[in-house]
């Protein structure tokens, strides 16, 4: 079983590596954005596993994005290898502060407090326009890598691979987290909180650790998204952005690591086509798909894939499917 999973993983990784050879430039751009968002969605999915919904993780996404923006606008720092760690650290730091408070809440309180805090950041980004650029946002210059500016026609390619490598690292880190005792306790949190405490662990500590990790992931995703898109606006912290992350986690399936990745890619394509065919009904499209998933396929796309894969496997092994 593990062998089969890692084989599928290898094939997927291989596809990502050779993708630039196959797909046109605009798809490469979508993939880069999807990989950046995937990291934040992974953070949201971690909480969903624990039975907690966060409508505020755009906050960390914005912290990361504005790290890149401020670095570019105020400090003249354009070095990707500097901005990325700073974004991750700031995301983790903000999460470490908020987590002190947030780890005490569950259920609707957790959701709404996250939402409230992200809306505070949104208001701040909007109102302190002399620092943040207000609704106009900040243009983020193409960052340098180790001091070199990538040649113009290779920028997209370079940052695609840059993001891909980081996405690989994040996937590995989160897998390790989920395989650790903390990861198992997080999953148990959705079922029964008190039994976790009976087994000698601290629920608050589990949530706190997850929160800090999720902040770091959000910061990373934000920096990378800012690099790719090249322009940031306060909407990065808006509730709709948070809702989008939750949507992607649900779409891909939050029970696994590949789920959010598939969700993030599917989402970028859905958005591209929805913009083309139903530009005024974007939220409605999201809502409808969400309803369908909740009512018909709660495991998301990944569960759908696993169901099909299991059926195929059974057929291949010659067992008739009832």
């Amino acid at each position, binding site marked *: 079983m593990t062998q089969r999973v890692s084989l599928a993983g290898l094939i997927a990784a291989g596809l990502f590596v050779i993708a630039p050879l196959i797909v046109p430039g605009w798809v490469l751009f979508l993939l880069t954005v999807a990989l950046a968002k995937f990291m934040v969605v992974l953070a949201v999915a971690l909480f*969903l596993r624990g*039975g*907690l*919904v966060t*409508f505020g993780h755009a906050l960390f996404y914005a912290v990361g994005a504005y790290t890149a923006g401020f670095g570019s606008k105020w400090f003249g720092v354009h070095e990707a290898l500097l901005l990325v760690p700073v974004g991750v650290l700031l995301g983790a730091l903000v999460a470490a502060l908020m987590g002190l*408070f947030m780890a*005490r*809440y569950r*259920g*609707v*309180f957790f*959701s*709404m*407090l996250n*939402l*409230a*805090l992200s*809306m*505070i950041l949104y*208001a*701040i980004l909007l*109102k302190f326009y002399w620092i943040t650029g207000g609704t106009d946002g900040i243009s983020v210059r193409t960052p340098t890598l180790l001091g070199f500016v990538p040649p113009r026609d290779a920028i997209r390619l370079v940052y695609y691979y840059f993001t891909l490598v980081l996405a690989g690292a994040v996937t590995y880190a989160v897998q390790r987290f989920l395989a650790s005792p903390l990861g198992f306790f997080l999953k148990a949190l*959705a079922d*029964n*909180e*008190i*039994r976790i405490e009976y087994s000698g662990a601290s629920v608050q500590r589990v949530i706190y650790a997850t929160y800090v990790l999720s902040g770091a992931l959000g910061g990373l995703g934000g920096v990378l998204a800012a690099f790719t898109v090249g322009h940031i606006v306060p909407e990065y912290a808006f*509730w709709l952005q948070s*809702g989008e992350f*939750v949507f992607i986690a*649900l779409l891909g399936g939050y029970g696994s690591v590949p789920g959010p990745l598939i969700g993030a890619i599917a989402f970028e394509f859905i958005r591209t086509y929805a913009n083309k065919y139903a530009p*005024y*009904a*974007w*939220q*409605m499209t*999201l*809502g*409808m798909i*969400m*309803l369908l998933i*909740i*009512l018909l396929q*709660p495991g998301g796309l990944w569960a759908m894939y696993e169901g099909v894969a299991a059926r195929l496997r059974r057929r291949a092994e010659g067992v008739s499917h009832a």
Partner: protein
Amino acid sequence: MATLIIIIVDGFVFAAILFLLSVGLTLIFGVLRILNIAHGGVYALGAYMGTFLALKSLDLGWHPYLTYLMLLAGALITGLLAGPLIERLFLRRVYGQAEAIQLLLTFAILLILDDLIKLIWGTTPMLVSKPSTLLGQVSIGGISYTWYHFLLIAVSVVFGGALVWLVRGTRFGKIMVAVISDREVSQAVGINVNRIYTVSFTLGALCAALGGAAIAPTIAVAPGFAVEVVVQSFAVIAIGGMGSLEGAALGALFIGLARALAIHLWPEFELVVIYLIMLIVLMVKPEGLFGAVEVRRI
């Protein structure tokens, strides 16, 4: 002194609307144990429907006083349509499921409602000011207010009183309390729990729609005000205690006055102030001012 009067009157007006909204949210939460994020969508829908009908009636040359009736009709249509529809079609399927799923479901409905409004009425703000200007103005301490503002407060107080009477003083209210305290036993003694759920949710939706229709003549209704309202009314019921009617009233007053204070002293950060109050109250008294401490289930 003049500023103080403005803050107090404005605060009470905000509180009146917030109360209508939050009491619906708290009612739904109390009975169904679901935080209905779509509540803000119903509120916005009520505001649009009321404005639309009132403008239509003015277009048709009907008597201006009929606009009040039109606003009420808009609220009733919205609440009585959206309530049973949302509850029967969607919420019913997720009772007893994980809280996360229930939250996500109502969030999805909010997204749909928000866009539905844009599709029906477009994105240009609409305003029917007739009901507000019709009643004339009154001067308090040198500042003039429309009587409509006081009508809002009166409507809110009467409605709140009626709701308390409904829950405490009628057979239906007693049945509702029974369902809240134990769903299964209620069913065992012959209460139609499903019907209570539908009626309670519809009642809650009606509160939201009424709040929307009532505020509509004082503001231009524009898309996108659904979400802020959800967070604000959540703040109100979190402060007052989830599921408590008195809590909603007190929370609404608290938030209403705080918001009025912020608007006059620190206008850029009116929202921040509300969230900060919520954070502080939840830090000090997580179950809210009127909430009961929940026994943890093993």
